[in-house]
């Protein structure tokens, strides 16, 4: 009985970055405990579509297979998420796989998330400690602060929050939730805080923090449960203070 069970998958494919997308349906044999990745691997092993025609294997990205790298993100049955943790048994069939079109599509389900890494550079999402001599141990962080900051550090730049955000699209230059939350993370660090104003200035520029329209889809969608909307509101408060400092003057850096 179970040998005859199948899985129906409809993939939105695209051959080249500039070619039009099209749908292709696949019917593959069911195995227990399958996830979307193992289903895609099955298509790769035997690239024949539902009509029985031979086709090219579907292209997608993956790496860790345990939801920590973020590479395998795609839109599964309408919602952006990681394909490595999307279990076939929990999905309604036919399973629809689409690329996260907020990003440029390279091929099939593979997208180019460079804009997120550029954003991290733009907001200086690191702590500068390099120097010509050993600076010694940095200041300690209060444990309670470390605990919430740790939650923010779980971001894997997967892009799901940008895909879910109605304000991140081709008509807007909004940087999106993930890099904003990183500003809160690095500003919370005692050494990172030395560049607090610089990071705030970066997100107070065009396409920055103020473009958030509070749809709060990001916090609902983040696979890591990062409190993105709390971060955004906290940054709004920091930006309000920074705005007054900039205008009226302040000795704070």
């Amino acid at each position, binding site marked *: 009985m179970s040998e005859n069970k199948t899985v129906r998958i409809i993939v939105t494919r695209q051959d080249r970055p500039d070619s039009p997308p099209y749908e292709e349906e696949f019917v593959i044999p069911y195995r227990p405990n399958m996830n979307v990745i193992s289903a895609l691997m099955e298509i790769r092993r035997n690239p024949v579509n539902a009509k029985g025609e031979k086709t090219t294997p579907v292209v997608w990205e993956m790496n860790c297979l345990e939801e920590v790298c973020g590479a395998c993100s795609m839109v599964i049955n309408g919602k952006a998420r990681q394909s490595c943790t999307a279990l076939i048994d929990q999905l309604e069939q036919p399973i629809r796989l689409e690329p996260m079109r907020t990003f440029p599509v390279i091929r099939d389900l593979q997208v180019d998330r460079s804009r997120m890494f550029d954003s991290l550079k733009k907001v200086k999402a690191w702590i500068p400690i390099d120097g010509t001599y050993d600076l010694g141990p940095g200041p300690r962080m209060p444990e309670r602060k470390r605990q919430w900051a740790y939650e923010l550090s779980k971001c894997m730049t997967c892009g799901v929050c940008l895909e879910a955000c*109605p304000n991140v699209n081709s008509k807007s230059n909004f940087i999106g939730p993930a890099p904003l939350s990183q500003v809160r993370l690095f500003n919370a660090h005692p050494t990172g805080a030395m560049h607090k104003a610089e990071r705030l200035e970066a997100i*107070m520029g065009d*396409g920055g*923090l103020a473009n958030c329209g509070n749809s*709060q889809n990001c916090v609902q*969608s983040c696979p890591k449960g990062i409190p993105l909307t709390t971060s955004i509101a906290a940054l*709004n408060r920091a*930006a309000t203070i920074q705005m007054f400092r900039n205008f009226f003057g302040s000795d704070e850096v």
Partner: protein
Amino acid sequence: MAQNREFFYRRLHSLLGVIPVGLFLVQHLVVNHFATRGPEAFNRAAHFMENLPFRYFLEIFVIFLPLLFHAIYGLYIAFTAQNNVSRYSYFRNWMFMLQRLSGVITLIFVTWHVWETRVQAAFGAKVNYDMMANIVDNPFMLAFYIVGIVSTVFHFANGLWSFFVSWGITVTPRSQQISTYVTMGIFVALSIVGIRAILAFV
């Protein structure tokens, strides 16, 4: 447009939505509510507002220009969003979409309303109880006014919610939740005030 002005424009947009435009809206609804005490009471209240000192100055700088900026920039904001409530049908995403939709409805309503009342007044029409009574004599116009009032009040109340987030006042999920209850309470209360007022002209 100069570089890096967006933050300033957004914050200005947010502020103007509450002060002065939102405050004016509340004041306007309260004055109109005098109509429930009869035509004389309404005419007296309207007359008082009409005779405020510096009337034209107040109209231009407290109502017209702030509303114009908020409306034009609001349209730009509304049309740069790509709504996705069918995929992500969460409560706040619906409110996000409704905030933009109600903004557009409000713009249509307010433009018509200003044309019919303030602009006609400038052409010599008399603004009083009878003017409104004549307008809402038409059931279609009455329906249009009710939709317009509810939409405007929703936009203001839900806008207050996002105002508190935009300025970093409500940061925690809990405070944002309570803020939802409070602002929706304001929506219901002001809707009652507004609808009672317009029905008093029927």
